[in-house]
């Protein structure tokens, strides 16, 4: 039905109609065709060609419109079921099966005559009436009641879980570890808040989850981009949703000096990117995530997108070697586009004591759209976890060998750069 509509109101047909009128119906073959007899909503004669008898396709469909679902509901159906069925789309509810396109066609069906009945819908009513006669409404009502009960039970469950959470938060009845990681807060409040961003806004697709260690220590190394470190939050959530493990991030000291950011970073399990803390986490068998590019990666200009910056001084490799845990190179595609950084106000940044002061593309849209324009762009993200690099082959003493550390750092960096290129080639567009 929709396709027919689209055909009638297509530009090509309109242009053809206009051409035919402008040329004064002199063209052969065109002027012979009869026009539609009906009049439009503005009381002008319809200019479409007649197809169904004296009417065009638009008016033929409108006048043959079926009654709306509310008229069609069986008399002995309860109000609950009625409401439920109306809420569903027409595919799920058999009685409403034929009455599609309720918004478009239904509103225009002002002059629909009740007498003409659609064949398929009538069949459906017949069948339902037949079934009802045979079995009665009992079963359907029971089913819906059961559904209702289950629904409210789930709601009650949710409510008591929420009450438990609130009680714990209000009375301080929760545990944090030495690093200050508040698991209760992170999994029950913060992660559910971020999840819509992960699922629906950036539509993260992740590959190679099997490369993340299921237990024991591991070091996830990823590229950093996007002006704001949102990629760290999203990757963290992705790892948690895929494996159920909390990846503990290592952050720069600026993070922990900044009000609010430092506090929340600690509470979500991040800690200072120093050898000491990382060693402790890895030897405790935790999964650790690190972004060795740091601010150089985050605050790089748009023209350098997906170009990996220097990987620190390779401290993360030495840490992984000391703890003898695998390194998982990870490539994040899509994070570069959330805040395209056009210019870096270096002087202002130095005055404020921050590593960079970004001018992002969205700022130019602020006069038009207001602060809403500063939202990150909804790019499509792909996170790929690469083949883990085994560090046990080198032994723990290799951590003190600068050449091995440099080589391994380069290897990790090249792996991530290759993965980035591959995923960039594979994506259809930035946003889809």
């Amino acid at each position: 039905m929709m396709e027919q509509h689209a055909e009638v109101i297509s530009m090509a047909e309109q242009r053809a109609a206009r051409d035919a009128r402008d040329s004064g119906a002199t063209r052969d073959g065109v002027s012979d065709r009869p026009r539609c007899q009906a009049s439009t909503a503005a009381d002008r004669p319809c200019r479409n060609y007649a197809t169904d008898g004296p009417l065009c396709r638009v008016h033929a469909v409108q006048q043959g419109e079926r009654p709306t679902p509310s008229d069609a509901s069986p008399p002995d159906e309860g109000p609950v079921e009625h409401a439920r069925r109306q809420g569903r789309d027409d595919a799920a509810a058999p009685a409403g099966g034929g009455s599609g396109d309720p918004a478009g066609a239904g509103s225009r069906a002002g002059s629909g005559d009740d007498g003409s009945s659609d064949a398929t819908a009538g069949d459906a009513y017949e069948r339902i009436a037949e079934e009802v006669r045979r079995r009665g409404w009992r079963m359907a009502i029971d089913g819906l009641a059961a559904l209702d009960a289950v629904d409210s039970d789930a709601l009650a469950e949710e409510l008591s879980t929420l009450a438990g959470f609130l009680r714990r938060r209000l009375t301080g009845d929760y545990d944090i570890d030495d690093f200050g990681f508040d698991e209760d807060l992170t999994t029950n409040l913060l992660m559910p808040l971020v999840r819509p961003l992960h699922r629906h806004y950036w539509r993260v697709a992740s590959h190679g989850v099997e490369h993340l260690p299921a237990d024991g220590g591991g070091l996830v190394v990823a590229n950093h981009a996007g002006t704001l470190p949102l990629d760290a939050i999203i990757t963290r959530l992705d790892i948690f949703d895929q494996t159920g493990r909390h990846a503990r991030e290592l952050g720069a000291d600026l993070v922990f000096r900044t009000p609010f950011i430092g506090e929340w970073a600690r509470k979500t399990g991040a800690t200072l990117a120093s050898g000491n803390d990382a060693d402790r986490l890895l030897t405790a068998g935790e999964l650790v995530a690190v972004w060795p590019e740091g601010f150089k990666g985050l605050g790089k200009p748009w023209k350098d997108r997906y170009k990996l910056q220097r990987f620190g001084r390779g401290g993360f490799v030495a840490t992984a070697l000391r703890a003898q845990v695998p390194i998982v190179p990870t490539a994040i595609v899509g994070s570069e586009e959330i805040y395209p950084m056009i210019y870096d106000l270096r002087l202002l940044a130095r005055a404020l004591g921050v590593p960079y002061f970004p001018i992002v593309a969205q700022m130019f849209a602020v006069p038009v759209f207001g602060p809403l324009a500063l939202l990150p762009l909804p790019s499509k993200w792909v996170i790929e976890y690469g083949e883990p690099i085994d560090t046990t082959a080198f032994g723990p003493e290799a951590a003190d060998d600068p050449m091995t550390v440099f080589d391994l750092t380069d290897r990790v960096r090249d792996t991530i750069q290759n993965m980035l290129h591959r995923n960039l080639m594979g994506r259809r567009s930035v946003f889809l």
Partner: protein
Amino acid sequence: MTDARRVLITGIAGRLAGQLARALEQRDDILEIVGVDVREPQHDLRRTEFVRADVRNPLVGRVIEASAIDTVVHLSTVATPRAAGGRSRMKESNVIGAMQLLAACQQAPTVERFVLKSSAAVYGSAHTDPVSFRERSVPDATPRQGYGQDVAEIEGYVRAFGRRRKDVDVTILRFANFLGGQADGAFQSLFNLPVVPSVLGFDPRLQFVHEDDAVQVLERVTSGDHPGIYNVAGDGVLYLSQCIRLAGRVAAPVPLPFVSAVASGVRRSGRADVTMDQLRFLQFGRVVDTTRMRTRLGIEPRYSTRQAFEDFVRRRRVRGVVAREEVVRWERELYDFLQRKGQDRFLHAQRDGG
């Protein structure tokens, strides 16, 4: 080295010193206990002899000589300016007092063991701190004011004394914040205020040690041979926000630029002694690693950080604005209500069905 000990305790009027003296009185291998302080101790002490003297007084040297003291336990370091009557007097009594005491000990050939009650404040507080300080870890910035500076300087003198008198075993105990006693009272006085001030946007990680555990540790190092430096703290960590919630109090976050103004206002009001070095602590907190205490001293703290805090709340009757029982009751009522609802529904369905 003899097993029978003659012990000198400085700052005997302090609560912790009194408990230590009482614990030592129970032991047969402690022959003599001498307590030194300027104030009369209020505790119920039996065997302990009390000498009213300042540690800066040469009398202390004569006491050490006369009683042939072999173990000196230095507990008289003052944590807050108010307790000493002003910051300059606090500094004098803390640092000069320790120097005089060490000078007296150096003269006394009988001294074999020196125990210093220090504080984890020597590590300072900074955003670059490691997750927990080990005894050997050197902080990026040593504290430059207040109590932290005092204890850092005293530790320096004690270590120098240990180098000069190689025959003396020096034990330094770095305690996390005490709760309940008078020692390190600056933090707990925050809970005397109607609302607990905190720094907006910061939530420090805190560690507490219960008095009983502190006494246990002090007794162990006084009676046994345990030279070295040890961190002493209960297990686990609490956020300040969590402490406030556990106590049922309300936080009053102060934006960073106004923190020192508010602190001096509070100090002038006389209800809490918030010093400048405490402010950094309220921003970044501090956690120490207690592995050495466990392995070398063999001490398992009886109270975790949280239990120590809850015990403090109970004993000091810290009045909560949000009562814990109330919240628990609300939750239970809601739960019961939901249960009842569910049951009603179930019965309803049964009745309808049957």
